[in-house]
């Protein structure tokens, strides 16, 4: 099994929902667990919100390209934007143990992405930020070879 779908959006926060819907539809149409679709939709929302809110030095319209693909083992989402160079993985980990009044929400979005995904990779190619999110597809129940000794 291998399949791929792409979507391009403008740098407008209202566009993010379309990406989530596409991801969830893709996941459903390939018989994958809906929780996987929700995790990717949330992760993409966090990353796109960051790029659209802080990624550009001008007020122009910019395209952001996304590609989702799955094979037997993993689901992979690739995001490509032409914003200024920014590696979200360099954001400090938020202090999750701080008391309420000392808590800050800075960095929570990217922290969530890292928690939801198995792997997040960043690269800068041809003046574009490339993020690749990967997560194992949970095996179907009833697979007897599934980790049993």
């Amino acid at each position, binding site marked *: 099994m291998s399949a791929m779908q792409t979507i391009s959006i403008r740098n407008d926060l209202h566009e993010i929902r379309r990406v989530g819907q596409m991801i969830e539809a893709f996941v459903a149409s390939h018989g994958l667990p809906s929780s996987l679709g929700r995790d990717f939709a949330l992760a993409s929302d966090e990353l796109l919100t960051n790029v659209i809110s802080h990624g550009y030095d001008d007020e122009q319209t910019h395209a952001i390209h996304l590609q989702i693909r799955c094979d037997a083992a993993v689901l992979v989402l690739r995001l490509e934007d032409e914003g200024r160079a920014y590696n979200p993985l360099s954001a400090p980990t938020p202090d999750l143990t701080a008391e*309420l009044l000392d808590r800050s929400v800075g960095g*929570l979005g990217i922290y969530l992405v890292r928690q939801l995904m198995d792997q997040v990779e960043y690269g800068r190619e041809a003046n574009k930020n490339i993020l690749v999110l990967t997560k194992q597809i949970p095996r179907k129940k009833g697979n007897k070879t599934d980790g049993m000794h």
Partner: protein
Amino acid sequence: MECTEEKYNDRTIIGLRGRMDSVTARTVEEKLLALIENGERHLVVDCAELTYVSSAGLRVFLMAAKRVTQVKGQLIFTTLNDEVRQVFDLTGFSSILQVCSSREEAITQAA
């Protein structure tokens, strides 16, 4: 994103319906901050129909919780669905915010 408001004795129950993300979180922010500003001190946020929350929503919840704490009030979240609960758990919000499983519990807890 819809916000409903209901009074129960001195408590105010805010019902959230829909998705709370970077587009819609502002609606909730304005509602919660206005209530606190107007002197409400016992707030219950009913999340039974909140289908989605991103960090943009968490930011609003955290800000409102801090504001309420500073004025010695109380903000309780109730009836989180599994997805919203997962986000609260992953970010440690379950331990810094007051969360009740039922609306009744949240109303009786509000002192």
